[in-house]
């Protein structure tokens, strides 16, 4: 557990968009995907997942639709919109610049 870190403010939005690039998914699947793909390093605080999803819907970057999940239950599936796809590119670019800059500051010797 000690290797797990909390998400930086704002990065959850980026991760959700990235996850949904692979196709529509419901909330639990999105969480699982983030945790699995970060090799269980990133801890998604679930209380903030849903507000983030709704924030993205409100901005028009993702949409929600009803579907049937793997346990045969009606659930909300979230899908990337074209606008969201464009935004993902923008955000990814921004993130790379930011990450590189932070890395340079933290390890100036390398």
């Amino acid at each position, binding site marked *: 557990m000690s290797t797990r870190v909390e998400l930086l403010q704002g990065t959850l939005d980026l991760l959700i968009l990235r996850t949904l690039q692979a196709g529509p998914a419901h909330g639990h699947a999105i969480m699982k995907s983030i945790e699995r793909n970060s090799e269980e390093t990133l801890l998604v605080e*679930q*209380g903030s997942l*849903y507000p983030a999803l709704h924030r993205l819907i409100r901005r028009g970057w993702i949409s929600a639709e009803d579907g049937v*999940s793997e346990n045969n239950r009606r659930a909300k599936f979230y899908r990337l919109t074209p606008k969201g796809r464009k935004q993902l590119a923008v955000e990814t670019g921004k993130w790379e610049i930011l990450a590189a800059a932070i890395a340079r500051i933290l390890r100036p010797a390398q």
Partner: protein
Amino acid sequence: MKLDDLNDDFQHHIELETRDNIERGMSPADARAAALRKFGNLARATEDTYAVWHRLWLDRLRQDLRYAWRALRNNPGFAAIAIATLALGIGMNTALFSVVNAVLLRPLPYPDADRLVWLATYNERFKLEAVTGPDYFDWKQQAQSFDAMAGYEVGQLTLGFPGAADQTGVVGVTPDFFAFLGARPSIGRLIGPGDRNAIVLTHRLYARRFGADPSALGTTISVNGVPHTICGVLPESFRFVLPFDAAGAGRAEDVEAYVTSQVTPETQSRGRTMRIVAVIARLRPELTVRQARAEMETIHSNIARANPGPFYNDAKLRIQPLQDKLVGERRGALLILAGAGAFVLLIACANMANLLLSRAGARQREIAIRAAIGAGRSRMIAQLLAEGLALSLAGGVAGIGLARLALAALIHFGPQAVPRLAEASIDLHVLGFTLVLSTLTGLIFGLGPAISLSRANLAGVLKDGGRIGSASPGRLRVRRILMAGELAVALVLLTGAGLMIRSFARMNAHPPGFAPERIVTMQVALTGPNYRGTPEQVAYFVQALERLAAAPGVRASGIANSAQRGFVNVEGISYPDGQAPQTTYNCSSSGYFTAMGMRLVAGRWLTDNEPAAAALINDSFARVVFGSASPIGRRLRVANGPNSIPTTIVGVVGDLKYSRLDAEPAPEVYLPFRQAPFLRRMTVMIRAAGDPMAVGAAARQALASIDPTQPVFEVQTLENALADTIAPRRFNLFLLAVFAAVALVLSVVGIYGVMSYAVQQRAHEIGVRMALGARRGEVLAMVARQGMVVALAGIAVGVGGALALTRLIATLLYAVEPTDPPTFIATALTLTVAALAACVAPALRASRVDPVIALRYE
């Protein structure tokens, strides 16, 4: 977004997580518990998601307001008192300050109103402001400080229409008058240069006499018997709101026509014919009143040097902004009333503070519990703010309603003499100011409990059990100071009102048998070529007296006028120049004294056929001029001229306040009307046997039967005529009394609030005392004493304040000293009794406390 959907989503999430956990080998129960733990606070997640879509603060505000409304409804007594306090404070002040604004502050309805000035010479000997025609023309010609200057004279003249006559307010205007005021005609044209004997009608007169028919233009009507041509009509919006000149008569509201002034360069010359004219001027934009004054002083002193004599020696130039002149003496009264309003607002705010503090005390425990179970401080402050806001809103709405009612009442009952009162409307700035002030009071004092409730004393409050607030002596002290302060302010207001009520009673005090409600008065003004000479005038009135005596219901009738004022001139008594007392010369018929119910003090009455020049004097004249010596048989001269006839004093009559109620009796001389040279205008006095107004109508008919072209007007009882003379004072009294009453009610409410709170706080202690054997009377006395100590301290401070402040209303008083002891004693007693009553009710409640219940109430 639907909450159900969201909840569904969450449940779905948790189910999947639970399944995953089971797959990892947990028991179903542990798996679900772990899933829930991992998800975190469901309600919080719901709220946060909800917040994405909704403006939460608005929701919270709505919720808080709803809660506040419920809290107030559960406490209707508190809510009603708080709302009434706010409504009175906001409403009365808004109404009054709206009047102050309309009368004092709003600019005149003429262009460049701020540059208009009033020009006059003040004659120190006659104590009046007057400009003569020749002065006006000299000023107009020489003064460089002004863009424009105009003159006018206001009078009550007779307008003769075909088959009818009106006695009405008419303004004589110089040719530049209308251009000066920026007036435009609605039809025809206005009086301008070159006009002679022209008349401009107001829209009201045009509608009344001509049915608004434009063919009236160019026709002639007679003005005091002289034909004038109608040249135009003013628009309905034009209003005459200028000050009157010294000789002006009537009321600004009664002005119905404008005629060419008789003040022209041809008619006016010094030492021969001079008319008095009112002068207004418009200052050049770059100049100040002070600069204009310097120039006018020079011009005036040049005129005085060129025309030596007492007239100019005693005259001083006066120049002041027109607005100041117009408001004049009323400024003092209005500012005092505004001060009274501020006092009431102060009391209302103190009351609000008191109420909220006592409520805060009662709610300390509730707030502590809410804090203990996790309510955030900001959330609780928001809740208290919402309560303050709800109160302020309710109070504000009630206040606006009250302001409208009060303003309508003020305009309805207000005297005509207050200029532009009828134009007053709710002033939004004032309303905003009072609303903000009272809202702030509500909010600040409403917040008190939340702020004072630090975490440190949270436990203390909760531990204290059911008993509340015993740990807040500081708050109680604030409340006591507020209560004492309220009483002090209320006492000042009550004293002011009390002094005015006493003045009013003195003004209205009639000598026994005077009975002004039984006396009918009316005015007759003889105009036209038929009444130029004194013999024709005498003939008219002799006939009038005969017909009046024969009219039904007339017990006694007479005529009189106050023809002339002058210096006392009695043979054998000499005064230094200008030091002689002034007196009024009245002409009257013998019936006048009977009709008025006057009393003969010495000598004999006058008859209508005196063989030689004879006069009556009044008590004041006898006292001032003759002291203790007998005036009977002494001779006086009516005028200072060489041909004045020595007139023998044949009797002394009692003083009578018959012309103005608010004036002290002054020296008067009565001459038989046949011997008096001034008969054009007479007041008819009739003592009625039956209904005064029916007798008045009969008398009017009797006069009309002599000559229908001569108008008879202002038919009213003497009581009404006298009441009109004190109308402005009555208005001031009415306003101040209303404020004082509001202050009294508010401060009693304040005391009651403090005392109820104190009793509630001490219920437990009182229970203990009674359980230990204290008698009901002792408890009663203890509680009442506690309140009365504070109340009496407040009253004592108030008496001091009133002694200092009532000097300011000295000018509004009549025959009452500003420190009148009976008034002070009466108001202090009134407040003491009111305070005692407010203390006794809670004390009674305290003494009825059942010790068992009080002790159990934990």
